[in-house]
């Protein structure tokens, strides 16, 4: 059984804390995941499939967390539980102190914006894509805001009039990040944001993410296989093996060779995922 590691919330005064006069217990944690399990229900010909088993952690506002593990370890599912695209079978996810089940999922997803592995842009121009918002929130962003959002991911405002299908995958991915930023989210959830990209684009997208983290004080949760992104993002690292927390550790100022876990060391030394999977067998 994997050790149940739990991080203490870091003291990090946020605006919510300072303004809080509510009775509700306020913590500095933006996400608190408590004993989370996900089992995919039985479908035709298949029994129930356990995906996550008893996962707990908490993540302070403004900090970052990387979810690593081999494919099928449940890291994407865990990420999708954070904005409730996935429903936990047991356990709770709290966002900003509130159980996510008490928040309108549509609201939650604008506060915790998800960027997927394969960028999804819809027919039309980049401007159309950036302005894509539910009717209830259609405070149409100004041209300046759209241009600013593109600038934040390193794209010029010339892109606004380009048709979505004329962009490279790397450019599309940066547009989806810009689109996610336009709701001014508290958190950015990244599901293998660079794994569909070629090396030059990996560098550009990584750079954009890091820049955002600094300028916006965003809380970032990233699922990734790119050790470079893990190192540069810093913060905490959660290593999942078959749906369980195998290791949970702080990366800041820590020499990877001192982490004391051979699998993690191997991962951070940049070994291939296949090697990692071989370790787990």
């Amino acid at each position, binding site marked *: 059984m994997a050790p149940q590691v739990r991080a203490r919330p870091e003291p990090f005064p946020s605006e919510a804390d300072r303004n809080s006069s509510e009775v509700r217990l306020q913590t500095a944690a933006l996400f608190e995941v408590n004993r989370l399990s996900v089992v*995919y*229900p039985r*479908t*035709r010909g298949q029994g129930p499939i356990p995906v996550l088993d008893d996962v707990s952690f908490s993540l302070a506002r403004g900090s970052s967390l990387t979810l690593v593990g081999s494919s099928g370890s449940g890291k994407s599912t865990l990420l999708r539980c954070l*904005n*409730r*695209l*996935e*429903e936990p079978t047991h356990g709770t996810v709290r966002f900003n102190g509130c159980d996510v*089940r008490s928040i309108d*999922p*549509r*609201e939650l*997803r*604008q506060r915790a*914006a*998800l960027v*997927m592995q*394969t960028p*999804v842009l*819809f027919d039309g121009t980049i401007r159309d894509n950036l302005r*894509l*918002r*539910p009717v209830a*929130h259609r405070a149409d962003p100004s041209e300046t805001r759209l241009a600013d959002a593109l600038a934040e991911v390193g794209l010029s405002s010339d892109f606004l009039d380009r048709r979505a299908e004329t962009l490279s995958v790397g450019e599309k991915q940066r547009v*989806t990040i810009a*689109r*996610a930023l336009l*709701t001014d989210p508290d958190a950015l959830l990244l599901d293998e944001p660079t794994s569909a990209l070629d090396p030059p684009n990996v560098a550009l997208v990584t750079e954009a993410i890091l820049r955002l983290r600094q300028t916006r004080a965003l809380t970032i949760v990233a699922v990734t296989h790119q050790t470079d992104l893990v190192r540069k993002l810093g913060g905490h690292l959660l290593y999942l093996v078959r749906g369980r927390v195998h290791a949970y550790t702080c990366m800041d100022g820590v020499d990877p060779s001192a982490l004391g876990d051979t699998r993690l060391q191997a991962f951070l030394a940049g070994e291939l995922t296949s090697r990692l999977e071989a370790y787990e067998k």
Partner: protein
Amino acid sequence: MSGAAVIALSPFQVGLATLLIGIVVAISILQALRLERDLLVASVRAVAQLYLVGLILAAVFSAAHWYWIILILLVMMGVATQATVARLERPVPGQYGIAAIALGASTAFTLVYVLGVVVRVQPWYTPQYIIPIAGMILGNAMTSAALAGDRLQSDLRTRASEVEAMLALGFSGREAVQPMVRAALRAAMIPTVSGMMTVGLVQLPGMMTGQILAGSSPLLAIKYQVMIVFTLAAATALASLLFVWLAASRYLTPAHQLRRYLL
């Protein structure tokens, strides 16, 4: 109604018609199609089924009680529901209920309108009207509902990431599946629309042919056919809309999630 009465067919004359099947069998043998067995079974089934239906209808026509009509309509509904489900390439969760509601509601509405408001049949259960018209409606509703359901399902499967991208942006489940719902409805309704474009030009619709053979004037037959074409268009649109709505809601949760494991 005017015109000559229909020429009665003796069993011998029907037997002469069976000779035509001999041509099909001959082609099958000469071209080594290996369809002879199937052809034989199909021919026997066609004769037996039609005779059986004819006998039942003859009995119902002479009895003409409303409860017999309701029973027949229910049986037709049941068969159509089963056929709709069987035509789906992959099972849709809750498919029997969805098909029954989609077919039942679309057929009931169009049938009541066309018999009660348009033709004004007295009494409403006159079998000569209600049975063939209900049959045509159900047959068309069935085809379009299955077409819509198949298309919805395959689109949701191949475009799941689009749905989730919409959900992740804060759209509701309904809004997120709207493009797939629209594509499914278009796919189901286009055959009806294009059918209306060419109706009468290539071949005469079956009902019109039957009416003309039975001695109606072509002008009266046309009026009935116009009515039927529009009725079928409404029924197919309603049936596919209901089917797609109900099926789409099966793939969504109240928390605006896509139940990917069902796809």
